[in-house]
């Protein structure tokens, strides 16, 4: 009888794995609660965190402490099942009203240059104007956020345009170089039709 038990145990061993593998695997479930906590800390709520940093101007981006602490890429929240937005990512935050915020490294990478304007009507170079389907506009930089602002072309100049942009005020900055890739970033981060995730 004992021998029979031995035999049964042995033959059962080979098929046992499939039965149990769908079950509890707590042995491999290392620190799941820690992980969740981590995601909650660095996840959807990133907007608030960076508001506190007060990016009033371009230089403000140098204050992005903590990005360098990023170690394994888990900190950033993946929006829409894979979008790289959040702490430690090039797009730090997306806000429907304010626009999107970039890391200082991303600003450097995209070679963005800013000019300060003195009102809603100003001259721009041709390369500053963004064309998207029927829309024309410029990128405003305010409080650390970039936002596409539709523009009305008042006059075509030999090297540029005279435009009027509602929503751009005295002291605001506009992007004068690197708008092509900035537009791609904007589409990536805010266009719901592309990735389908609302922020």
């Amino acid at each position, binding site marked *: 009888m004992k021998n029979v038990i031995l035999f049964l145990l042995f033959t059962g*061993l*080979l098929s046992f794995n499939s039965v149990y*593998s769908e079950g509890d695997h707590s042995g491999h479930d290392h620190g799941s609660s820690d992980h969740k906590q981590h995601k909650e800390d660095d996840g959807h709520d990133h907007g608030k965190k960076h508001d506190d940093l007060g990016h009033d101007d371009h230089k403000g981006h140098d204050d992005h402490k903590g990005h360098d602490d*990023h*170690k394994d890429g888990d900190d950033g929240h993946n929006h829409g099942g894979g979008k790289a937005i959040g702490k430690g990512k090039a797009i730090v935050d997306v806000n429907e009203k304010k626009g999107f915020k970039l890391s200082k490294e991303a600003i450097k990478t995209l070679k963005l240059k800013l000019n300060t304007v003195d009102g809603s009507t100003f001259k721009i170079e041709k390369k500053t104007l963004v064309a998207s*389907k029927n829309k024309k506009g410029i990128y405003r930089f305010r409080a650390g956020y970039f936002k596409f602002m539709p523009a009305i072309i008042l006059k075509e100049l030999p090297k540029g345009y005279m435009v009027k942009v509602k929503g751009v005020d005295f002291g605001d900055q506009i992007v004068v170089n690197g708008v092509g890739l900035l537009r791609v970033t904007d589409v990536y981060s805010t266009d719901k*039709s592309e*990735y389908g995730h609302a922020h």
Partner: protein
Amino acid sequence: MINKVIEFSVNNRMFVFMATLLLIIFGAKSFQELSIDAVPDITNTQVQINTQVKGLVPEEVERMVTFPIEYSMNGIPGVETIRSISRYGISQVTVIFKEDTDIFRARQLASEKLQNIELPEGVVPEMGPISTGLGEIFHYSIEAKNVETEPEKRLLQLMELRSLQDWFIKPRLLTVKGVTEVNTIGGYEKQFFIQPDIHKMTKYGLHFDDIESAIEKTNLNVGGGYIQQTGEQLLVRGVGLLQNIKDIESVVVKRTSSYQVIKIKDIANVKYDKQIRTGAATVNGEESIIGTAFMLLGENSRAVAQRVSGKLDSIKKDLPSWVKLKVLYDRSNMVDSTLGTVEHNLFMGAGLVILFLLLLVGNFRAAIITSITIPISLLMTFILMKWQNVSGNLMSLGALDFGIIVDGAVIVIENCVHRLQQRGKLAGRELTREEVKQVVIDSAIEIRSAAGFGELIVIVVFVPLFALTGVEGKMFGPMATTFIMALASALVLSFTVVPALAATFLSGKTRDKKPFLMNIAEKAFRPTLESALRVKKLVLGIGIASIVAGVFLFSRLGAEFIPQLDEGDFALQFIRPANISMENSVKLQRISEKIVAEFPQVKDVFARTGAAEVATDPMGVNISDSYVMLNNFDDWPDDPNIKNKKDLMREVKNKLDLHVPGQVMMVSQPVELRFNELLEGTRADVSAKIFGDDLDKIIAYSKEVAEIVGEIEGAGEVESESKGKSPLLQYTPKMQALAELGVTARPVLDAISTAIGGREVGHVYDGVRKFPIVTRLSEKERKDVMTVRKLPVGISEGYTVPIEQVADIDFVETFSAVSRENSQRRIAVLINPEVRDIESFVNKAKKLVDEKVKLPEGYYIEWGGSFKNLQSAKERLGVLVPMALLIILAMLYAAFKNFAQVVLIFACAPMALIGGVVSLNIMGMPFSISAGVGFIALCGISILNGVVLVTYFNRLIKDGKSPEEVVKEGAMTRLRPVLMTALTDIFGFLPMMFSTGLGAEVQKPLATVVVGGILSATALTLIVLPSLYKLFIKQMQPNLFKGDSA
């Protein structure tokens, strides 16, 4: 029969030695001719049908091209699955046939069906190259030594480089044996552009057709036959072929009523310009041209890659001095590195086996004789592999353990030495050569049942692996075949060459010297055994407890199919918004590459963005496949953050994430990427495919699934395959307005196609090279929405209207791609989990998705990836392994004719499993099919030990010894052969267990299981088995005293 073979071998030693010599020669030759690769080619039999379709959006491509092709392919015999993808301008249908289908027959059948399909005018489907997932064996780039910085000059430079690739390098590479296709991506095809000024065209009342017609009428040579003179004959021809930009500019388009001649230069600018590209290539952050050599199905990748490399070396000499040809990826390097690991492990293992044989046998000649069987059995295996067309790779050669292979020889030679010593002692003198021969024959015959039977059992346990099909069959079939071949070779040698060598070289003075190690082992073993025999029931309890513990630990192991092979380099797939332009996608790619190239560990980084010339992989322009080639690990600088490839991949990803916005990336490996694509139609290790009719719905579900899966711990990269819709500028002819003008919609459509898309109106020839002449608006005008509203549409001779008068112009949205599988639309969620326990991860993901995503009728989710192979393999092995074990039981019963003894021997197997399970746990490895193969081998080896021990016990019982004497003397006497086989098995696999070379990760689970298992099996067999034998002696005795033996 075997007895006669043994006798013959000893009595005809010269014949045996000559035959062995021949075997060695043939073995060496077979090795040279053996097909060598890194891993088995697991790609299924498939035919790709690629169709270029201009001007149709994905849904139209699906309806008008993809579906008809799919529909017709469905009827072909042997078709298993059909997948397709429809993108803007391209359709790709992949027809997957049953495993045993001949690829050439499959292509023939597909080709016949293609002949009868009705497709839109001008649409011609083409079959992809006869290649597989391992087919892309060589990448090279063609670059300028000094890159031009001015855009115009750079454009010309890229055109020249592309021409060199298309007309000089590619044709020569196609002559290399084993190369089926050379695919090109990057640069610009040299094209002559006629860029009309629409204002001037309108002014002269010219249509786009007029330009085409003028070029057609001018750009030709004609023959005038010949004329005869007095004694000669002269051939006549008229030369009109255009040769350069000046010629094109001079072509007359029209003569006005005022006799003003309008030439092309009067209404258009003629220049070289950028074609509308579907793909681009970049190398280390600069645009470049990349060529990829595809290996013909069934060829030897290492050999073909080496031939391509050789050919490129000769081509390099003939290239202009300003051109630089650089090898980016050479598969032979990966194959060499992987096989280098195998070679290192095999030779290290063989060395250790020989060393331990020397230490344990204590007889130098006996040890050498046993060791000789290692290379000879390996060479015999090469002959059999060549005969059976089994390629040498990580899976086939990597599973060989010389320790296991020489077990039979070890048992035979140990018995010979033992018996010679006994006979010598009995005779009290040196034995004569004739006596030595007789002793060798007798002792080989005496032990042949145990040795042969045991090895036969090891072979039988491997048989179920042959029943595996699909990917798992291709992966593990060669492993089982090679292992059985090696084992069978060694078995044959142990009854032929080993006795022959023993009879020739073992001395008549042979003393059964106890080597130092054996003395220690015996001293430690004797008291342990005696103690165990005193507490037999406790020992039984320990045995059962260890088995129960093994079962418990085994059930807690996670599972993966096989460990991921480290290819040495890695791949990054960048996915950007669907509506990104080629220009911006390339810009982001160049930025990304420059960041990656900053890492000192990186040798080269290159990428393909969009689809290549032969669209084997029809990616959109928003996707870039980047290959990151690494420097030799020894050359890596000391960096506390980057100690290995995994660290580097993490740091690269983090840096890219922080620096480059607008893209997501998935990390993979070059071969892995292609395998996933070809096997599952997706580019990830795991995919959740959502099927249904409504694209909007399945896209929404895919995003929902991606969100849910992304939240699971260890999900790694999770990405919906769909990037939603892309904007489209759509012209719809106003039928009413056209009717009033009395024209059809054709002139409107022609104007769009020519002015915006570009129309080929002729060619300029340069020797055998030909370059298209294309009519198209300038890039500046094409970009301008206002201009494209004013396109002149010819409605009658000399009269045009702006297109906005006869067509509605709107921006609409269209899907960027439509994927189908088995006649249904599908979107996949791509997942590259970070965890190794893929099975548990997928089970968790499935459970969560089933709970949270409620799909309507007609919609369903299928999960794909390597875990499916694991499930399928486990299902089959779950049935077949117990069947094989039952066969072994029957074999054992036939041999021992005592059920109690059979169960006793059989109990050795679970006792071995505990060690395997514990060692997997210690090494932090989940269960995998590689580990499963280890468990299978363990069953055989442990039963072999049991057979050896019980056979000896039976013999002693037959000699009239008491049960107490039997187990003590038996266990002590057989300690040496059992230890010898165990230690040789362990040391044969030890280098593999701790190897860090390329490909080692695939072999490690197998080695870990065998090493751990043999440790526990040996300890438990030597202690538990004698105790149980004595404990249940009453159940065994009746038969034993009847005199049965194995």
